[in-house]
């Protein structure tokens, strides 16, 4: 560290410039990571926040809620394996509603759930919907931006049904649309309308899209063996199968990984160039008896100091920005994610300095003799 720090003190401009680049790259890494997290959350929070561990869907539904139809038979079977309370009906239907102050059309996703079960949304303002109430829904707070308040009417385009907003929940989106929760009798009515049946036909058992399950992996495995024509998928798989989720996350992940590689290369090139410039210095130091290990450690220490300093500053910048961003901006960065990102960044910097360490090891002490090197 003796040499490393003194050299940085002496050549401030050089090291500040490279630190500025590292700072920008690491800030971008953290920012894009936060954005990816935020978008993932905005895309799939309704599923992610569900306390379910697995979902049971039709085998050929490609793990997508919209494509799957399951009925009472599967529900009964699932309940016999995991217990009555641990398997719940889940209806998912994307639709377009009009409502709000200016009658604007909005895409939403309807969720039909048992309001007495663990699938019921947490109400943050207004009142919850009971299983007996009719035509009442709890909606995601994002709809408040469209002018929807408690008591507003939502008019469904396809079925002509109208629901009254009774309360708000938060962080419930599906495929970037706000979630609207209704009880199972309203879900039954919706499906009947869509099937073109008379309003009240008690003989019609409305199908739903999936069965939400709280179970251990072993139970889920057992269940999938017992049920033909169905697939048990984990919550993670269900999230990844939401339309657009994989594509969105994939392109952001690509950006992040490129940024990591770029940071390693920027450091590698920088240290390689200055190490080559200093070949004669290293030769002198070796001639007067400095161990290669000491010199290599000095190069690595500089890379570490640069990486750590730029990370510290960019973490502060990210914190400032997080506070300044508008709520509508999808941005989510947990301390754990920041920690992992920083560790990976430091690892990449070390990797970048490796080329120079090899160069230092190759420098011959003989370079010092008989050469008028600076």
């Amino acid at each position: 560290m003796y040499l490393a720090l003194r050299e940085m003190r002496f050549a401030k401009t050089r090291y500040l410039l490279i630190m500025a680049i590292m700072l920008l790259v690491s800030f971008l890494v953290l920012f894009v990571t936060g954005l990816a997290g935020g978008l993932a959350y905005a895309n799939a929070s309704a599923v992610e926040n569900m306390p379910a561990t697995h979902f049971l869907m039709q085998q050929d539904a490609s793990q997508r809620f919209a494509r799957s139809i399951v009925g009472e038979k599967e529900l009964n079977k699932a309940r016999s394996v995991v217990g009555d309370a641990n398997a719940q009906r889940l209806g998912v239907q994307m639709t377009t509603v009009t409502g709000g102050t200016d009658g604007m059309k909005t895409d939403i996703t309807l969720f039909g759930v048992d309001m007495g079960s663990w699938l019921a949304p947490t109400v943050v303002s207004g009142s919850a919907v009971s299983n007996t109430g009719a035509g009442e829904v709890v909606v995601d707070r994002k709809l408040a931006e469209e002018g929807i308040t408690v008591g507003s009417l939502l008019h469904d385009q396809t079925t002509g049904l109208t629901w009254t907003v009774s309360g708000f929940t938060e962080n419930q989106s599906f495929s970037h649309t706000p979630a609207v929760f209704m009880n199972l009798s309203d879900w039954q009515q919706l499906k009947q309308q869509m099937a073109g049946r008379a309003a009240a036909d008690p003989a019609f058992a409305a199908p739903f899209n999936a069965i939400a399950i709280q179970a251990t992996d072993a139970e889920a495995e057992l269940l999938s063996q017992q049920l033909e024509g169905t697939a048990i998928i984990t919550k993670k798989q269900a999230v990844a199968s939401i339309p657009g989720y994989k594509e969105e996350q994939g392109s952001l992940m690509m950006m992040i990984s490129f940024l990591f590689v770029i940071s390693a290369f920027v450091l590698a090139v920088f240290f390689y160039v200055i190490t080559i410039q200093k070949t004669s210095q290293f030769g002198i130091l070796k001639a007067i008896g400095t161990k290669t290990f000491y010199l290599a450690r000095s190069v690595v220490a500089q890379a570490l100091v640069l990486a750590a300093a730029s990370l510290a500053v960019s973490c502060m910048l990210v914190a400032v920005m997080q506070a300044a961003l508008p709520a509508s901006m999808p941005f989510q960065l947990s301390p754990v994610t920041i920690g992992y990102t920083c560790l990976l960044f430091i690892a990449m910097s070390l990797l970048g300095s490796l080329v120079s360490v090899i160069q230092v090891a190759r420098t011959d002490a003989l370079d010092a003799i008989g050469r008028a090197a600076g």
Partner: protein
Amino acid sequence: MTATKLMLNEITRVYHDGDTELTVLNKLSLEVKAGELVAVMGPSGSGKSTFLSIAGALLTPTSGEVLIDGESLAGKNGQQLSKLRLHNIGFIFQSANLLPYLKVEEQLMLVAKLADMDKRAAQARSAMLLERLGLLHRRSAYPNQLSGGEKQRVAIARAWMNDPAILFADEPTASLDASRGQDVVAMLAREVKAEGKAAVMVTHDERVLHLCDRILHLKNGVLVSA
């Protein structure tokens, strides 16, 4: 401590250049005693650098033996040689070769640090050396703020820092004008006498020869007296 600081016994060094063999040093022998400053002269290509590299434990001879302060270099590995250079040999290179980012005092402290010298003892020794070489007032200066003569004097101080048995100087006056060159070599000679050490100086500069105890010429791979 022995009176003979450097002993070279029939050193031969052969370079292979394609198919031809080039014998640069041919059974060269030399003994340097404590308190001696020896000048080695010779035209370029006569093998001065090879001679200095072998005597300074940077290069292994094809045959022959090197003893520094009574210790033979034969059979030592790279790390052991590096350690020996750190503790027993002082180097002064052409055009000083100080580290540009260390202040004068730090140049000396670095060497002490590498040798694990006690910090307080190192500070005392560096102050003493800088004082003797007339550099105490420049101790917080960077090399780019020093004159050529001052730089070489710092290099001499650095070479003495770890109390080596012998000091090797590779054309120390090459980048200095006549009077500065005289000063630097005079100081070198005085330090050799004061510390009871030995020094070997490879040089082209005839103006400083009168300060040396012995003058040798490198001819046909051996050293001959002038």
